[in-house]
């Protein structure tokens, strides 16, 4: 852990801490899943090592699907730490509210396309929020934070994944969430095709009805 501690802490997240580091002359991020002592040690170890193994695998798979993700440099199982490329750019979370309407629309369509490519390739991101998307200077959107992701082609998993995106927009970008999600769906349907995408959208409605206190849910 000494190696990690000697770096500059960028962000202390809930799931992991991000450190800025140097990797043979390149700017790198060390994502370290530090032990969480609120949960029992055995459970903690299981969760941290599971996510540390799976995250880089999913990031590589995502690349194959045509979804930009940071390059992986090193996976350190002992410390549950992943060293990866530092992506220069801005979090979509910070950008979205400041964009002109057409640009925002284009960005949301693009996000939808990326999610579509993941799903088409059998991948689930597991934590689709605008803070997990980085837009670089060339207009490329990188997806990060695959720690809660999985390989899954089921409709249910796709629905939950896209539903998370919708929820993230509603909680963080509430004044434009409806419009943004509509464009995300548009981009998503462009990749998956109207028929398959339609099935996923239907699933989202079903998941919402399953939720707590939803008006649309039928009375028992």
């Amino acid at each position, binding site marked *: 852990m000494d190696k990690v501690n000697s770096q500059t802490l960028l*962000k*202390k*997240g*809930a*799931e992991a801490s991000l450190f800025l580091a140097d990797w043979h002359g390149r700017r790198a991020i060390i994502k370290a899943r530090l032990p*969480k*002592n*609120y*949960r*029992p040690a*055995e*459970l903690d170890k*299981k*969760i941290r090592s599971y996510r540390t193994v799976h995250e880089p695998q999913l990031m590589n798979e995502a690349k194959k699907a045509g979804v930009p993700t940071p390059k992986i440099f090193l996976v350190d199982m002992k410390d549950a730490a992943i060293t990866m490329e530092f992506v220069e750019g801005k979090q979509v979370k910070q950008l979205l509210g400041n964009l002109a309407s057409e640009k925002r629309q284009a960005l949301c369509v693009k996000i939808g396309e990326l999610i579509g490519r993941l799903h088409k390739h059998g991948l689930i991101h*597991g*934590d*689709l*929020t605008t*803070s997990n998307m980085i837009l670089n200077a060339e207009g490329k959107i990188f997806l990060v934070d695959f720690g*809660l992701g999985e390989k899954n082609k089921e409709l249910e998993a796709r629905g*939950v994944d896209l539903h*998370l995106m919708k*929820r*993230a927009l*509603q*909680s*963080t970008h*509430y*004044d434009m969430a409806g419009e943004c999600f509509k464009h995300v769906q548009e981009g998503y349907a462009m990749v998956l095709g109207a028929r398959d995408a339609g099935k996923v959208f239907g699933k989202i409605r079903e*998941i919402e009805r*399953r*939720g*707590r*206190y*939803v*008006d649309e*849910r039928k*009375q028992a």
Partner: protein
Amino acid sequence: MKPTAETLCLGVESTADDFGVGIATFDGEILANASSSYIPEEGGIHPREAARHHAEAADKVLNVAFTKAKVNPRDLTLIAFAQGPGLGPCLRTGATVARALASYLDIPLVGVNHSVAHIEIGKLTTGAVDPVTLYVSGGNTIVSAFDSGRYRVFGETLDMALGNCLDVFAREAGLKHRQGVPLGAALERLAADGKKLIPLPYVVKGMDISLSGLLTAATSLLQKRESRLEDLCYSLQEHAFSMVTEVTERALAHTDKKEVLLTGGVAANKRLQAMLDIIAKEHNTKFNVVPLQFATDNGAMIAWTGILAYTHGVTTPVPKSFVKLRWRLEKVDVPWIK
């Protein structure tokens, strides 16, 4: 209306198995908080039976509250009631009591969102101002924080509520609900003697959690009778609480708020309190937990939230006082927060 110690609000809570009446002064002193719980002979809450209990208990609970507060009904300024979310028959019983009181005394009526009330009573009693709140009860599992006029929902359960998950397991294990000792408390006591962590599903999806798989797995282990009950209770609690703690921490990191508030019936659990205390400290934030008597459903929280709403221009005329069974937290305007 200027908040003073002389202006009084009576709040009626009846969303689920508790019928509660609270009396509060407009400057935030709780004068009375009386309640009666419907305890099913077996199984969970039967809505119609619970409503029958509420109708029968209303008169007694109201009298206890008036006596405790040393208040005459004629001294009241305002009647508040839990308008939703909750079980239809139960909500309607409480609403009927509230409408009758307001009409008879000829004073204003205000409908209150039950989830908002759990957050507001937590803030009033702990001094928290702008927290990330984990609200966990038999009917709700919500991580929320205030932003631009409303309490936003950052995370919630995708299926069952935390309290419901624990209660169902406790009943399957043969534990009994007694007046004053909820099932969760009985389970917590057993869990304290747990030694071995049995692996169970741990399902976090973004900021949401899913508990139904955990309950199924724990229940089927229970039926196999190969594990100590204490170990199972312990393992169930550790897994479920770790999940809600993880999503609360995520919301805390996401929002950068400086306080954590634990509220709702499951807030009484010491182990859950300890877990949240740890994450609060790690993020240099202040941990607050609602006092026990205001953790479970209660009338005082409805009275207090009614005061906040009424003093900021909200009233609910009787013709518009129909109950809202599925009134989500983020649909409620909270004009009393800037």
